[in-house]
């Protein structure tokens, strides 16, 4: 399904304003491997990926490694048993400055940001006026005078235009806010041995950096880095924002540790699916509300009262009234279940559709997410999935499918 997401209409056809260190299609030669008309964007790790045997594919307008020399399953399992590095520099990193930065960000997303502790972050959602989800993102309230926002590569143009439009409104109203789209690269280091590996290059005791908190610190001597304890695999992991001129060096230093291997978008997708994490564009999009998507927890308590975010007039009533459909987890055996697979009731009526699915390397069963009529959304409900014209038994399951290992402190 990730392979299909590559080709989806989220592909950005215009170069971003931000000055990425590596130019578009450096040689000017159009890549024959892809069907888009413009050269793909490259992260500063592009040549490094290729030198390491990376198989490059198009994703959201970028040329990214889907896997390296290891098979998909080996790479997936290595992340769960040791740790892996993922290049996620294609994602959009933004700083929001100014006295009114919290008010500004809250005008776009659903969370209680004012209540975050210093250097604490949270998953949140940009919503549209129809109550749909524009993107999911992580926002961190740093103690450095800015909010740090990380959002999806596939929505970079949409999100930056959205933020800039609101910025103009706020400035016109006399508020003090500014945006900076960052030039830094971003790598994720995910897996049970992450802390052991990273501690060798960080002075602060990582036992004090709990899940969803962030710190500025040199990493292996490289200055200007920010480490946030979060990720997209369900494992204990970090994302490291690092000056683009130093990202290759940092990656090499991490790889020097025998625990660490590179991993690509293939493993990234099967890991996040096992962890029950949504992929924007597949599992959530502009037509799904946070309530339908089973993401009510992202809507702050204060925000539900104030109804002061886009689409609140549609979303908040849904919290009580329930919705016609809901996102659920699905487990089955037999032929793998993929995006667009119809979901049926036990008596063969179509009751929904799968939005993401893959064979789970850990569980050796098929795991999937999809939307079903609310009456079928209870965990344990017997359902069917239609694969290759045959109805296969399945069951509504809780997520995450594989237990998560987020580090909550000691």
């Amino acid at each position, binding site marked *: *399904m*990730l*392979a*299909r997401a*590559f*080709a989806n209409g989220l592909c950005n056809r215009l170069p971003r304003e931000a000055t990425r260190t590596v130019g578009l299609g450096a040689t000017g030669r159009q890549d024959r*491997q*892809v*069907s888009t008309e413009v050269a793909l964007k490259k992260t500063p790790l592009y040549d490094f990926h*290729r030198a390491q*045997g*990376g*198989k*490059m*594919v*198009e994703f959201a307008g970028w040329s990214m490694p*889907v*896997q390296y*020399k290891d*098979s*998909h*399953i080996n790479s*997936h399992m290595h992340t769960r048993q040791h740790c892996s590095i993922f290049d996620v520099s294609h994602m959009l990193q933004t700083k929001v400055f100014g006295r009114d930065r919290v008010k500004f960000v809250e005008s776009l997303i659903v969370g209680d940001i004012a209540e975050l502790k210093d250097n604490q972050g949270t998953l949140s959602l940009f919503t549209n006026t129809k109550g749909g989800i524009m993107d999911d993102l992580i926002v961190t309230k740093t103690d450095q005078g800015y909010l740090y926002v990380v959002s999806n590569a596939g929505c970079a143009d949409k999100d930056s235009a959205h933020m800039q439009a609101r910025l103009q409104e706020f400035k016109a109203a006399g508020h003090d806010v500014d945006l900076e789209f960052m030039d830094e690269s971003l790598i994720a280091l995910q897996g049970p041995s992450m802390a052991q590996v990273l501690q060798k290059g960080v002075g602060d005791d990582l036992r004090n950096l709990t899940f969803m908190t962030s710190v500025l610190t040199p990493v292996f001597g490289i200055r200007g880095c920010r480490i946030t304890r979060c990720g997209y695999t369900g494992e204990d992991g970090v994302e490291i924002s690092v000056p683009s001129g130093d990202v290759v060096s940092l990656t090499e230093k991490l790889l020097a540790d025998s625990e660490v291997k590179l991993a690509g978008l*293939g493993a990234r*997708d*099967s890991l996040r699916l096992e962890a029950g994490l949504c992929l924007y564009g597949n599992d959530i999009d502009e037509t799904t509300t946070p309530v339908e998507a089973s993401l009510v927890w992202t809507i702050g308590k204060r925000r539900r009262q104030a109804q002061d975010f886009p689409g609140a007039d549609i979303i908040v009533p849904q919290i009580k009234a329930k919705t016609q459909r809901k996102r659920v987890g699905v487990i089955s055996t*037999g*032929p*793998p279940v*993929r*995006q*667009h*697979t*119809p979901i049926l009731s036990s008596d063969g009526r179509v009751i929904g559709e799968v939005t993401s*699915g*893959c*064979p789970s*390397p850990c569980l050796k069963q098929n795991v999937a997410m999809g939307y079903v009529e609310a009456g079928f959304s209870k965990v344990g409900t017997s359902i069917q999935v*239609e*694969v*290759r*014209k045959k109805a296969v038994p399945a069951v509504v399951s809780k997520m995450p499918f594989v237990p998560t290992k987020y580090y909550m402190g000691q």
Partner: protein
Amino acid sequence: MMYLRAPAASGGRSAPARRNALTPARLLARACYKRPLSTTTRFCAALKFTDKHEWVRVDSGVATVGISNFAQEALGDVVYCGLPEVGAKLSQSDEFGALESVKAASELYSPLTGEVTDVNDALADNPGLVNKSCYKDGWLMKMTVSIPEELDGLMDEAAYERYIKSMED
């Protein structure tokens, strides 16, 4: 086997991708990793190949069918094999099953006209045999050969090597 298409269409309801479509598996095949030309040769004494990357070997009137090394590399770790029932009657090019990896699904197309006499049950518990031993232990099915002349229309090993080389250029 040819249509190594992304799972997007794997409800079985859409037409398979055209042969020339740049499916993700083909992108992988074209990407910068070297395909060993010689490892296949030693095994393939009497193999014939289809343009959809199945191989067939006939012994005493029984044809054994599998997928080529090129195909198993492009597909990645096979996690599920959908194979036909013994007794199924197939015409040449009929879809007879599918192989699934974590990321992608590929239909299988019969290289010959005949009746399925045996199916590799070992693949149910060990689908990875298709990757580890695509010409031997990873065989998919055996079938009768109703129209022996069909074999003449298939590629021999040298022609198949030229064929995949031309795809990669």
